[in-house]
Every structure is written in structure tokens, then in C-alpha cells.
């Protein structure tokens, strides 16, 4: 069973539906015992970093996530869920993340051309570098996924497994052993996105 962690940020309907469409046994939950018994964990998230990080802390789910990841359980953070995996974010101040992946979250305005629109919204292509991670085993270099974000993963080079170009090279996905994160929305990225979810279910 795969547990989608429900900690009160964002709507999980599409995410649940996307896993159901690939035949995964899925459970949306905020119950630590259910998360502990799951084979895999999904950490979703939309909205502001500070608010989401606080909700994880106040509910004690931050500790549950860290404990389960320490046991080697595969986790996939999506969008803000990916950002929360890093050590800190500079979105409106400085806020502490889960620290499961080395690096910081910084505004894309720091690195992109001034005439480009923020957020980075729409379909953009993935690059994998020299070695393609097993998360992308069903898709190809240059395949498109759907992004909506104004902040990006910085100083996380050693964990980057995919990037995308928006006048600058932006982190599209990260992985540190069993802990994975994608900046884009696989549940909104059609066949390509569903293939990534399928590959995650096989990690």
C-alpha cells in the first residue's frame, strides 16, 4: 500500500486518481500507524513552504516521515513536497525543512532572465545528465512534464537526477537513496507523469 500524506495542504484528488489509474493500492492518510505500515510514502504539497513545514511539525508527521525514511522506505515528494525534503527554504524569510536532501530552496528570480514569467508554469522538458535514474526508466530524455513553481532546489547538486531549462538550469528532480522528489506534477503530466509514478512504485 502507498500512503499519500494528508497534512492539510492542497487537494489530493488528482494525485489519488493518478495512482489509481496505474493500479496502485493507495491510501490518503494523516495517521502515523497507517504511514508506518505503508510500503511507500508520497509527500504532496502546494502553497507556502513555511505554512506546510509548520503543519508537518505541529502534527508530528515530520518525525514519522524521518523515521520511515531512515528505515529505507521509498518516499516521493511532489512540488512543495519535494522542496520540504531539503534543509531549508528562503521563501519569505528562512525556514527549516526536513533535511532529508542536502540543499536549499531559493527563488527562481535569482537565476532566470528578468523578462521571463514567474511562476515557471507550463510544460517543460526533462534532462537526465549522464546517468538516468530508475525513476525515469519508462521515459526519455526531452519528455515533457508540467511545472508550476516560483522557487527551486539550489545547492543540491549531488542529489539532482533531472533538470529543466528556463533560461537557467533548474532542479526538476532529486534523489538521495530511498528519498525522491520531483518539482513538477507527475499527476498532471499525462503518460509521462504516470510512467514516473509507476517507476516509483517499483523502486
Amino acid at each position: 500500500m502507498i500512503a499519500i500524506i494528508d497534512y492539510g495542504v492542497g487537494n489530493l484528488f488528482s494525485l489519488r486518481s493518478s495512482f489509481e489509474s496505474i493500479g496502485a493500492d493507495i491510501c490518503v492518510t494523516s495517521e502515523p500507524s497507517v504511514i508506518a505500515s505503508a510500503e511507500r510514502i508520497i509527500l504532496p504539497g502546494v502553497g507556502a513552504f513555511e505554512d506546510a513545514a509548520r503543519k508537518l511539525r505541529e502534527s508530528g508527521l515530520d518525525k514519522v516521515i524521518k523515521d520511515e525514511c531512515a528505515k529505507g522506505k521509498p518516499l516521493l515528494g511532489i512540488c512543495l513536497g519535494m522542496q520540504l525534503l531539503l534543509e531549508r527554504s528562503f521563501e519569505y524569510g528562512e525556514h527549516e525543512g526536513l533535511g532529508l536532501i542536502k540543499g536549499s530552496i531559493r527563488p527562481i528570480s535569482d537565476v532566470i532572465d528578468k523578462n521571463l514569467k514567474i511562476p515557471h508554469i507550463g510544460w517543460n522538458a526533462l534532462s537526465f545528465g549522464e546517468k538516468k535514474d530508475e525513476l525515469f526508466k519508462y521515459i526519455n530524455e526531452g519528455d515533457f512534464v508540467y511545472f508550476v513553481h516560483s522557487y527551486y532546489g539550489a545547492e543540491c547538486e549531488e542529489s539532482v537526477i533531472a533538470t529543466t531549462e528556463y533560461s537557467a538550469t533548474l532542479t526538476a528532480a532529486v534523489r538521495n537513496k530511498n528519498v525522491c522528489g520531483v518539482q513538477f506534477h507527475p499527476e498532471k503530466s499525462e503518460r509521462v507523469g504516470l510512467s514516473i509514478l509507476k517507476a516509483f512504485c517499483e523502486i
Partner: protein
Amino acid sequence: MITKRIIPCLDVKNGRVVKGVNFLGLADVSSPVSLARFYSDNGADELVFYDITASAEGRALFTDILTETASKVFIPLTVGGGINTLEDFDRVLKCGADKVSVNSGAIKNPDLVLQAAKKYGDQCVVLSADIKRVEGEFRVFAKGGREDTGMEAISWIKRCVSNGAGEIVVNSIDTDGVKRGFDIEMLSAVCDAVSVPVIASGGAGCIEDFVTLFNELPKVDAGLAASIFHFGEVSIKDLKERLKGANINVRI
């Protein structure tokens, strides 16, 4: 680099897709769920569902259709029509919408954009503006293009963007249904005024109209159309191949 988006718009009334010509003379086309699936399979980058139902029964039918679509179609889904309150945002977001488009609701209550952007984030709030030339200026129309609000369109759009609208759909009433191309002049004025994504709507009659749109206005992010897709006059696959051939970046 980010691609230009092609967005079919489905006007839904009593559970069926319709499309007006200059907003009048509605004609039944097809089932929303199967049409959405078809477009997604054929390369649509996003879908807009527009609820033009007036009755409560029709509204309930619409949310059922939305739920079914969102459980089967995995591309971004924008929902508009009858969005007047935060409860309306909540209702459609719970059924799987990713973005919510406001039009008359924002005109009646300009704080709606601000409140919704605070609660759901800027990226969730789309301002849809029906615009027509009146006495030498661009004028905002309400109620599906039937009522002149007297407001100048560019200042209205700027105000909504500063309140948190994350995307703008510019629907030119002057070119809508005419099928002779997008309203380049109107779109250019909007693109110059705001820095959020702009979606062109109204006037597409053939593939070349999209080529002209993106070539003449590189700042436009997406092209939206309804009837030319519904009636099969333009296939999204052919359209994207042609755009790619014209060196316009698209997802294929």
C-alpha cells in the same frame, strides 16, 4: 524551454458540451468526459471546462462530470462559469480542478481575486476577461459578453493581477466566432501591461491563426479555442506539428 500551450475549451450545459458563435446560437457537440479524454490523448496541454448552466440541477451534474473527468484525464484542468464566492472555488477544486477562472464574479466582487489568491495561491486564480472595443477603448463585458461594464479593460486586468490573478484569459468578443484569427492588437495591449501568463481566446479559425499568434506575439503563452477543435476542423496533432515546423516550441 517552456512550451506554448494549446488549450481546448469545453462549454458545458446540462452535462453536454456546447459552443456559441459570438455567444449566441448554441449547438450540442459531445460528451465532456469523452471529449476531454480524446483531447488529452491527442496532445492538448490543458483543458478548460466552462459551466454555462444556470440551474442547481445542472450545477450538480457539472460537478459530477468534473469529478469523472479529473479521475481519468491527467493534464491541468481549469474550471470557470458561475464562480462568485470562495465556496465556489472550494466546490470545483474538491472535484479535481487545478485552476479556477473568474469573470463576472470578479466584476461583481473585485475582492474575490484577492481572497482566492490568498487562500489557494496566485497560480490557482485565472482571470477571464471578455473584451470588446467600444468608443475607441477596450471595454470589459460581463454576463457572457452581454453587458458592458463601462470599465477599461487594461486597467481592470492590471488591478486583478496586482490582487493575485496568476493567469489572464483574454477573450476578444470582436473576433470570437468570426474565425479570422486571434485579436493580435488587443492581446498585444494586455501582454505589454502584465507579466503573468496570457492566454489568447476568440477568433481561431485555422492552424495558421495559431502560427500568426505565436510569431507576432511571443509573449502570449497559450492559445485557447473551442469549436474548431470540437468540429474537427483543426486536429491538435496537426496544429502542433505545424507549430513545431514554424520553430515554435510545443510539446509533442
